């Protein structure tokens, strides 16, 4: 069986499941953020007084941190009220960071678990080998009340990443290139397994960038195998036992894509689709007004380290506002201890608190009509980050920072 089939079979109490089958599975972990307010209201609307497994629930505020409006502050009040009512002790308030990052770095996610979250980027935990996916708040209310949810067993496809990735090309370039080459629907309703030397060579953080964006190619789940890097990551964070994830040989009818990353160039997703991807060398000179280094895609310590390396001793172009957003408090603290934050500060960057920031278009760095932003985030839809007359380009941390220095979208190899 594939990884997705093994996990869904275990969670639904069956020996075997097949793609296309529907199963009702028991959920191992539940993640929610500011949307927990809506979950709480939904539970209340149908008279649910207690939830099934409060110890399996993790809530962290990340979207409206700190609240930009009275309405957002009221939403946080509701979240706190719900957290108290249902006895959820894994509540990080605004002191954890982006909920996905908190889930992984605080040891709430283990290989082989079935996890649902009220956010489309819940698939990020696949970097650690969990079957994790996004759902809405009504489904979350149902799942919390009953402990279970229906799933269609997905087909599985595999991307075998071969070769050695040439620095400064990064895992962000790989997932953007996959979106560009195979489309935003490449993995619609499917589970994706990432294998091959380049997958093994990658840090756990780089794997998280790829699994984070698996949903941008339509994927339901995304998996990386358990190896010494996974074990090292988890050993500092949890003492719970877990089932390692190892892929079986692909069956005859499994779609397997072989990708050689050794010749790969830095790429950019241009407006207004994630799969509208071009090699950076093919772009004309495009001036930018905002650059963002952060998010659940690329706001981890290795991203900040690369950013700092590319900006040290330089300054942000006068026409550009650079926003640096560490993905969590833990990362923020480490970046401070390593002196990375002062490098960004000296260069003229704005350092924001760990949060989703402007990524979803609500606050902290929105775009005016005609403005152009290069961002390490995961979506460039029209109107995603402010005006629908603005443009968002997606790229790696190295490309974002090099562009912030030059004032136009720049190949990091020319840094």
């Amino acid at each position, binding site marked *: 069986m594939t990884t997705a089939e093994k996990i869904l079979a275990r969670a639904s109490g069956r020996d075997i499941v097949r793609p296309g089958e529907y199963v009702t599975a028991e959920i191992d972990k539940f993640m929610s953020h500011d949307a927990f307010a809506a979950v709480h209201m939904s539970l209340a609307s149908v008279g649910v*007084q207690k939830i099934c497994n409060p110890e399996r629930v993790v809530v962290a505020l990340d979207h409206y941190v700190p609240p930009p409006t009275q309405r957002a502050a009221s939403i946080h009040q509701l979240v706190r009220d719900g957290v108290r009512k249902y006895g959820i002790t894994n509540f990080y308030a605004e002191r954890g960071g982006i909920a996905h990052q908190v889930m992984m770095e605080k040891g709430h996610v283990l290989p082989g678990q079935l996890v649902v979250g009220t956010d*489309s980027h819940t698939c990020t935990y696949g970097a650690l080998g969990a079957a994790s996916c996004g759902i*809405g708040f009504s*489904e979350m209310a*149902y799942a919390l009340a009953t402990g279970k949810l229906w799933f269609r067993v997905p087909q599985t496809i595999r991307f075998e990443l071969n070769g050695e990735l040439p620095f400064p090309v990064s895992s962000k370039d790989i997932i953007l290139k996959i979106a560009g080459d195979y489309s935003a629907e490449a993995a619609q309703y499917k589970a994706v397994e990432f294998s091959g030397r380049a997958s093994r060579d990658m840090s756990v953080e780089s794997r998280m960038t790829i699994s984070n964006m698996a949903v941008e190619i339509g994927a339901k789940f995304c998996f990386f195998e358990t190896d010494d890097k996974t074990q090292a990551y988890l050993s500092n964070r949890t003492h719970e036992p877990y089932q390692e994830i190892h892929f079986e040989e692909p069956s005859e009818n499994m779609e397997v894509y072989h990708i050689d990353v050794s010749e790969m160039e830095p790429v950019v997703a241009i407006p207004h*689709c994630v799969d509208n991807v071009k090699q950076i060398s093919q772009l004309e000179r495009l001036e930018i007004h905002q650059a963002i280094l952060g998010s659940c895609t690329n706001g981890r310590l290795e991203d900040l380290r690369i950013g700092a390396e590319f900006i040290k001793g330089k300054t942000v172009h006068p026409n550009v506002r650079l926003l640096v957003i560490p993905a969590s408090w833990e990362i923020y603290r480490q970046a401070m201890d390593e002196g990375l934050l002062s490098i960004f500060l000296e260069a003229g960057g704005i350092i924001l608190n760990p949060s989703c920031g402007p990524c979803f278009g609500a606050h902290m760095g929105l775009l005016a009509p005609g403005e152009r932003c290069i961002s390490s985030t995961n*979506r460039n839809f029209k*109107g995603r980050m402010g005006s629908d007359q603005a443009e968002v380009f997606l790229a790696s941390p190295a490309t974002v920072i090099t562009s912030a220095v030059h004032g136009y979208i720049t190949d990091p190899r020319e840094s």
Partner: protein
Amino acid sequence: MDVIEGRVWVFGDNVDTDAIVAGEYLDAPIEETIKHVFASLKPDFVNEVRQGDVIVAGKNFGCGSSRENAPASLKAVGIKCIIAESFARIFFRNAIAIGLPVISALGVPGRFQEGDTASIDFSRSMIVNVTDGDSLHAEPLADEMIEILDSGGILEVLRRHGGGNQ
């Protein structure tokens, strides 16, 4: 489930949830968000949509954020059913969960013009363009989904089962 018949709005591929309801209205009450549905993609939509209308779309409808207010807003402005070549999975689940029928039909783009009348027979998984008589098969919905839709949404299922707290 009954047969649904309604006037058609046509959309293309990759309609994302930000295009349905922009992120700045994510925290707004539904009465507010419904004023901004498809604001930049189809500005006339909110003024001209009528109760019982149907959306016919291309590939990957509802891609992007898991925001449930996207299908909820479409339901609230009167959309009775969405037919698409394919759906992004979270949108598909959310639509079923709030009791908005959605159905995939390969080859549906190009079979309807804006303003045509579509008829969707869920029991036979059949879609008919009433305006020109054209018809095509759709992908059947699973029993789990039909049960949720028939109940009026997953929260109604929960209410029926005593809120999960026996």
